[in-house]
């Protein structure tokens, strides 16, 4: 688990019909990093996540998780290498209780196994930070939106991953809730969790990330620290819809 990169994409491309979703994408995420990926709608952010996890197969290029070439691997096998993923639309199991939901990724939640202390610790941070009770019998479908979002993030952590891909965690949240999410993610990162976040909210991006990747039309448009990226005129244009 001590590879050079936690996650790496080399020259990855993908088309949908005539639409280019990813073109020659190169991405390296080091262990322990907290990386934000930004870009306008349709820039290919979610596709990039899907390609990294294997939900979509890349047409060309290679994907590595901890130096394992996983390009031909099915999603569930990639997950087992220590990756977790949340989706853009909140996806918890609405008909199951909170307790059951948290048990799905890790049936033996109560047992703190040897070698899993770090993962268990992170889960504890998340649950406490988000105020979720792991023995709660409330149906997930009855939770308010932000709690459902937090539940989805906690579920990912319940699988004890060392790298997580989080797609728009703060969408639809109030400022307070966003801040609380930011806080928890930062804490988790401080406990060694590699985090890749797709996010629109620049306030959020500024407050969590050091390094930002900008995607545009399936290509990596720019990569740099927050200050550089926010200062870049072209990036602003992309967001306003001028640049091509």
């Amino acid at each position, binding site marked *: 688990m001590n590879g050079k990169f936690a996650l790496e994409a080399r020259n990855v491309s993908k088309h949908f019909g005539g639409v280019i979703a990813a073109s020659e994408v190169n991405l390296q995420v080091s262990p322990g990093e907290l990386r934000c990926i930004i870009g306008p709608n349709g820039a290919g952010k979610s596709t990039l996540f899907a390609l990294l996890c294997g939900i979509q197969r890349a047409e060309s290029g290679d994907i590595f998780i901890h130096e394992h070439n996983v390009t031909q691997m*099915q*999603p*569930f096998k990639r*997950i087992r290498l220590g990756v977790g993923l949340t989706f853009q639309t909140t996806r918890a*199991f609405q*008909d*199951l*209780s909170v307790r059951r939901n948290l048990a799905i990724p890790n*049936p033996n939640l109560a047992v703190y196994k040897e070698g899993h202390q770090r993962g268990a610790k992170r889960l504890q941070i998340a649950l406490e930070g988000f105020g979720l009770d792991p023995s709660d*019998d409330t149906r997930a479908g009855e939770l308010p939106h932000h709690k459902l979002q937090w539940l989805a993030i906690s579920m990912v952590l319940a699988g004890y991953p060392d790298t997580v891909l989080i797609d728009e965690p703060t969408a639809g949240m109030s400022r307070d809730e966003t801040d609380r999410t930011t806080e928890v993610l930062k804490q988790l990162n401080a406990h060694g969790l590699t985090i890749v976040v797709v996010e629109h909210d620049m306030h959020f991006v500024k407050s969590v990330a050091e390094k930002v990747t900008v995607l545009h039309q399936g290509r990596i448009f720019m990569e740099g620290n927050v200050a550089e990226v926010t200062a870049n005129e072209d990036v602003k244009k992309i967001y306003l819809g001028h640049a091509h």
Partner: protein
Amino acid sequence: MSSKILSLIGGDADVGTSRIFWVGFVIVVILFALYPTQASEFRASNVAYYLLNIPLGLGMALLWGYCGVLSFGHVAYFGIAGYAYGIIAGNMAGNSFGPIAGVLGGLLASALVAGIFAYFVFYARVREWIIPILTLVLTLLLETFLGQTAGYQWRVGSVLLGGYNGMTGIPSFQIGSFVFMGYSFYYFCMVIVLVCYVSLRMLVNSNFGQVVFAIQQDPLRTETFGYDIRARQWLVFVLSAILASVSGLLYVQWGNYITPSQVGLLSAALPVIWASVGGRTSLLAVVIATIVLNWVTFTLSAQGNQYAMVIIGSALVITMLFFPRGIVIMAAEWIGRFTNRPTKSTGG
């Protein structure tokens, strides 16, 4: 350990978790056990017929309700097991191990066909709505094949497949020299149904069952927790095929007879109807619906009522319109408001 088992049985993955429910459950089981003492052999055998269909219905609930995969052709496994039993036990007629060998052979044959078929279906990642139609095609194929097996060229050992007229003279089940017939067959069915129900209830409350339920809710999400969903769907499919074969085996022992129409279009729809009327997301609901619907069908036809199909068809439409999650489930929830205290955690 035993408390773990109890918590699995009593878990909330099926309706009925309260104390009152379990008291009622035990009373109903006792009533069923006492029934033959009050009823003629004919009535006992009729109820045995309702009971023997239950595993098929349970298999449907497991596959459709809990796993989200609808099979319109589960009667194929019912039929394969029945025919395999007939061939094996028929050829070993006189040998008291014949029926046991027949049961094992029937289960194995069904599981094998289901395994191969499910591999085709799930690993090809066909779209969800195609699966019911593919299963239907399989069962029609089986019916067409079996229908033309009249004559001696279709003799397996000493047993004739019998074409459309069916296979006759299938031996009853026996252990040692004890043959299950009449009342004893009733108890045989009852015990098997009880075992199927309780063990399935444990299964759906277990981690395995929960993951299967999660697959039904959101396959992709479940996969991104590191589960091989296709392997699980495959396993559930085979398991439900085995349940269908249990019904098939009991059926051939009940009537000593099976025909290709058992795997035809009309039979194929029955388990789907039981599951949807009762409520496919509850094992118990399907059990109740199986018994009640079989009873209604029989009663209507015994009266020579030509409206039987119209009534059953309308019942289906009305159920789907007004009780979309199943009559039994929705009734249970309504009753549950009065009996269930806000559920305490049952463990786990």
